[in-house]
């Protein structure tokens, strides 16, 4: 277990250790979240590295990562706890076969921790020898408001109430990262309890660093072209601009294809890696790709 970072620079360094190139605003909010013990609420377009932060945190701090992937219909039995009904049934039968008459005793026995199946939120409240775990509540916008309301108790007091057992409270609160793609507005009450940060697209310099860290065997020239092309693409009027994840995918795809420099044909052929909407792809025909690529190349030449 590594100690928590003691400054913003240390936080930046910590993330960089795991090849996560963060900008200073993100490092600041992360540092504050760690320092103040508040959940971190990350919102942003898909593929900008929100989930990655939790993973990197867990890895660099040597904590356990507990992930709760949200989906529509997520309920307490999938998110917090569930009783092991099969074992409970058997226990009841056994107790009765042994002539146990006292019903409240049986009830007390079967609603004990032995028969409790812990789901992510309850797991996250458990003490861990490696320090409190990192709890990632991923894509919270996919659940409904009812579950959000339930999370309020968990995120404010780091406690969960199991009616049959009582309240479970974390001795050492977990590091909580909540992410949202904003397919729905998350209620203010939940946001109020968190530190909020909007994760945007990186600028060219940072994206280049990210690309070189994540795809180390990419040619220098190609990496520059890839980053500049994606940056230019984001300025276009697209329905969905490509995220960092798409940039990385594209770069690996191009490396797999042994491309050393971009040309219009290759770009057109592999555009599906960057753009995921038919309208967007249709707008980028050969000529448009060529003109954009020429712009990028001349820009790069000018910079040399």
């Amino acid at each position: 277990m590594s100690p928590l970072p003691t400054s913003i620079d240390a936080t930046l360094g910590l993330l960089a250790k795991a090849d996560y190139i963060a900008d200073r605003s993100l490092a600041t909010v992360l540092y504050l979240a760690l320092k103040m013990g508040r959940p971190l609420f990350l919102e942003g377009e898909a593929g900008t590295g929100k989930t990655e932060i939790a993973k990197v945190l867990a890895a660099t701090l040597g904590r356990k990562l507990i992930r709760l992937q949200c989906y529509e219909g997520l309920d307490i039995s999938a998110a917090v706890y569930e009783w092991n009904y099969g074992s409970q049934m058997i226990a009841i039968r056994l107790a009765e076969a042994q002539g146990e008459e006292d019903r409240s005793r049986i009830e007390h026995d079967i609603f004990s921790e032995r028969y409790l199946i812990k789901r992510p939120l309850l797991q996250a409240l458990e003490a861990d020898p490696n320090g409190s775990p990192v709890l990632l509540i991923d894509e919270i916008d996919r659940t409904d408001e009812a579950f959000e309301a339930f999370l309020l108790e968990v995120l404010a007091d780091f406690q969960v109430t199991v009616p049959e057992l009582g309240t479970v409270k974390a001795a050492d609160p977990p590091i909580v990262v909540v992410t949202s793609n904003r397919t729905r507005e998350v209620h203010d009450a939940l946001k109020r309890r968190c530190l909020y940060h909007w994760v945007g697209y990186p600028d060219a310099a940072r994206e280049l660093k990210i690309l070189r860290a994540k795809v180390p065997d990419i040619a220098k020239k190609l990496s520059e072209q890839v980053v500049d092309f994606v940056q230019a693409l984001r300025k276009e009027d697209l329905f969905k601009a490509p995220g960092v994840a798409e940039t990385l995918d594209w770069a690996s795809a191009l490396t797999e294809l042994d491309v050393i420099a971009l040309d219009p044909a290759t770009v057109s052929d592999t555009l599906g890696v960057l753009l995921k909407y038919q309208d967007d792809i249709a707008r980028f025909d050969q000529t448009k790709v060529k003109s954009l690529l020429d712009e990028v190349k001349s820009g790069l030449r000018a910079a040399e």
Partner: protein
Amino acid sequence: MTENHGRLADNILYFARALRAAGMPVGPGAALDALEALCVARIGNREDFYWTLHAVFVKRHEHSVLFDQAFRIFFRKRGYIEKLIAAMLPDTPGYEPKSPPPGAQRIQEALFSDLNERARNSEVEFDARLTVSDREILRKKDFAQMSAAEIDETKKAIAELALPLDELRTRRLRSSRRGHLIDLRRTLRASMKAGAAVIDLRYLGPSMKEPPVVALLDISGSMSQYTRLFLNFLHAVTDSRKRVITFLFGTRLTNVTRAIRARDPDEALAACSAHVVDWSGGTRIATSLHTFNKQWARRVLGQGAVVLLITDGLECDADDTLSFEMDRLRRSCRRLIWLNPLLRFEGFEARAKGVRAMLPHVDELRPIHNLESMTALVRALSGAPAKSYDPRALLRQVA
């Protein structure tokens, strides 16, 4: 003092009635509570008096504004009460009359009707039912100039729509007799009661939920006589449902969801006006829809949303983009309903270019220009799309 006390009691009762008339839920119990509170609190000054009454009468944050207005006007309008209060309160601070904030009209009216009633000294029951022609007037009248009775009447009529909008099956489960999944938790509990020999199976079924409603309201000049009414309609819808998202558009798109959530309609509409810069201007439907599709569609159209597009479809620069954006909008939502006030005219034909561009992409085209059509709309929302409002029929007419 006993005489004073008697008059105080009267006045508190009148004040309570005024609040009620202004739309606050103040029952007779509250007036009694207020009297008791005033006796217990041993009023020292006007502020104490204010807050004592406030504590008793105001039960929701939104009503605080109404109460404040009522209090100021009530204790200004009646000089003789002022004297009474002054007798009780040694230092009555004067105050400056300001331009009336939202709600003032309704309070003023509530108080005046109260005064008139007293002057005539008779039990005049205010007849709140409106005739057909009144309703006709109501439709055209600016909401800002509406009397409390008219707002009340419209609100009542709109509230009577009951909004039984459709329900969607969610993936969340709840206990249900006719469910198809065994609810192990409740089954176990039930058999604990009965003894393990008897297993009384309990079931889970899908829970139902109202889908979100997203309203896109045209506030351009050609729509101006309807916008206020529609805003009130949307306010009522927002009032009774959690998930209503409202956008206004003329030449640009504005999200007024938060503004319209204010409980008081005056306040909500005022907040809306404050947000919007392009009232009664031109229309750029395509541009507005483009903005919506790009910036908002993915944020608000999840979970089976129904889109209400309220516009007359009179777009000056109608070209392919309008058709394209409409197509995208329809693909991103579960149901797209176009509400067009022009449809009230007999023999409305889809001649305008904008209308023709939009029609093929909507699931339903309905009139909305009075309370009846609103009622019909709400009824329609609860069921399957009506054949008579099939937009393609109109297109065929022209073609």
